[in-house]
């Protein structure tokens, strides 16, 4: 059983890695998309993104039962409650300038296009990334070619389950 968390700040390449893992036949869920997140009031004002825990619990439990590898991508404050259930916690990282460059260029996710959002990314990276790093079992610098990053992730999981056939 290998349930692996892929975490990291915006623009470190989580979505790209998850997309490639899916193409290689793995179950790889990007929790930034598809209803895995709810917004809750933050203690200091504003709102905070968090995992919908019943859904995440069901997702992980299904793979714990079947033994099929699962990659979960995301960075939310309540992910720590699930840490004991991840065999690996992989931090994807890149220098801030690279992150901001990717965010400016990306099409899929609009977050980070305004100066205010970029300021938030810089502040969040300083505050959050060290916490992620302290719990990570592996850190991958995503300036490496994507295929290489994905090779390293796939090696952690072993081969995909037979039922998880590669997409044509």
């Amino acid at each position, binding site marked *: 059983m290998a349930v692996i968390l892929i975490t990291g700040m915006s623009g470190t390449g989580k979505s790209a890695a998850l997309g490639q893992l899916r193409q290689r036949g793995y179950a790889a869920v990007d929790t930034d998309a598809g209803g895995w997140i709810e917004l809750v*009031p933050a203690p200091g004002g504003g709102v905070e993104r968090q995992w919908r825990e019943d859904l995440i*619990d069901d997702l992980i*439990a299904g793979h714990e039962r079947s033994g099929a590898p699962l990659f979960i991508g995301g960075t939310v404050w309540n992910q720590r409650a699930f*840490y004991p259930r991840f065999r690996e916690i992989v931090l994807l990282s890149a220098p801030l300038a690279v992150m901001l460059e990717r965010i400016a260029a990306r099409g899929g996710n609009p977050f980070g296009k305004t100066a205010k959002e970029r300021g938030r990314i810089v502040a969040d990276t300083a505050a959050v990334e060290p916490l992620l790093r302290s*719990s990570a079992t592996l850190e991958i610098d995503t300036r490496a070619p994507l295929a290489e990053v994905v090779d390293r992730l796939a090696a952690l999981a072993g081969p995909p389950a037979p039922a998880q056939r590669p997409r044509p």
Partner: protein
Amino acid sequence: MPASEPAPGAAPAPPPAAALRLRPLRRDEEAAFLAAHQAMAAEGHTFGLGYLPGMPWPAYLQALADHRAGARVPPGLVPSTFLVADAGGQIVGRASIRHELNESLMVEGGHIGYGVLPRHRRRGYATEILRQALVIARAYGADPVLVTCDDDNTGSARVIEACGGELDSVNVIPGQVTPVRRYLIR
């Protein structure tokens, strides 16, 4: 018939400790929670920390979510993560991971409080709960992790030692008969 299969009519073997998972309470498990709360209350312990009898279930879940996020934490308490221990789909215990220590937790209580329901004891679940709770305590920055138990609670002391606990001190608490052991886990 393979030896691992129970004889017809026999109670199924309890799930092994390796099958135990810490997870948040679910919105649909008020009845299971109440049963666990009553089973612990019957022997003078608390399962649902902060739970008041008759409290509406959504209000309790919201209070737990608040305390995890550090919002509306009652005076004298600290932000904490409350999780149940699930073995084979059944609640068998719980853990409370405190994100920081206050003066009283420094002496008694420590970073992690945990308990196993009476009818699920002696199966190694307590050690597994503590082992997994340590991962979360460290993710909140606890280093070393402080865990305490009563000086005469040999079962609990063994669990803490099995998880790498090193005895730091044994302290007499004003107003309490039994001294408290403080263990540090690095």
